[in-house]
């Protein structure tokens, strides 16, 4: 029961606002893509693993505003590469972002992040549940 609660807490905070609503052949340049994310939970923390392939550590930003965690991956505007052309394409590096509503039991002051080869790992330590003794 608790588990499903946590899970719903990791819903995307911007599911309605920034879900891509484009169709093939109609792609506005300024639309926002969602950063793919895995969440691993243990007793002490949640660990978010975000797939930011192709972005450097400096091009990724993490911020919190109250209980909303925002991760953005953005490349500075670049001149298109005219020296080479793509003759086979399966992926593109696109600016993306992800907003997450943090569960109430996350210690926001102690959030830590590290970057490893295109994966951003954010650890969200859990606060210990306060036990309330009820005397009968």
């Amino acid at each position, binding site marked *: 029961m608790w588990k499903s609660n946590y899970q719903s807490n990791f819903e995307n905070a911007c599911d309605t606002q920034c879900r*891509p609503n484009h169709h093939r052949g109609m792609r506005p340049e300024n639309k926002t893509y969602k950063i793919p994310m895995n969440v691993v939970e243990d007793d002490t923390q949640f660990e978010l693993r975000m*797939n930011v392939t*192709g972005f450097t550590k400096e091009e990724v930003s993490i911020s919190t505003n109250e209980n909303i965690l925002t991760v953005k991956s953005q490349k500075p505007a670049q001149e298109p590469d005219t020296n080479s052309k793509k*003759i086979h394409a399966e992926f593109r590096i696109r600016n993306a972002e992800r907003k997450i509503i943090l569960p109430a039991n996350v210690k926001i002051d102690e959030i830590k992040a590290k970057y490893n080869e295109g994966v951003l790992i954010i650890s969200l330590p859990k606060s210990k549940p306060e036990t309330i003794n009820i005397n009968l």
Partner: protein
Amino acid sequence: MKNNQFYSFHPIAQTFGNLVDEFVNRGLHDLAGGSVFQAGYPSSNVLESNDSLTFQLAAPGLEKSDFKVAIEKNHLIISAEIKKEASETQEKFTRKEFDFRSFKREFVLPENLDLNKIQANYEHGILSVKIDKTVPEPVTSRVIDIA
């Protein structure tokens, strides 16, 4: 000439089977938000410049030593052994939108490449393999006298 090079990638895609399925899946996923790592093996791009071909593989979160890059006949084979497969660890995923798995991808190389001049590097989750093209023999123009 350019076309030939493009099509040389085609047969290998078929050996991975279900090319159509793959494209349909990727297409749908693209509509739903896009991802660089959602099929069983990493996505690739191939870039061509005047003097080289670059094969890029989106395989985030690995270590340089996980990769093996090999040339066999005219095939470029890129593979990675991931030491601990996700299924073997005890981690509890409450959400999973991308995955790391061992993989192997093959590319048929066009003939005009110099297989002694290959550079590979792994940066920001992208493995790049750059192969220089052979320098084409300069065409010396000559005028043929009419006897």
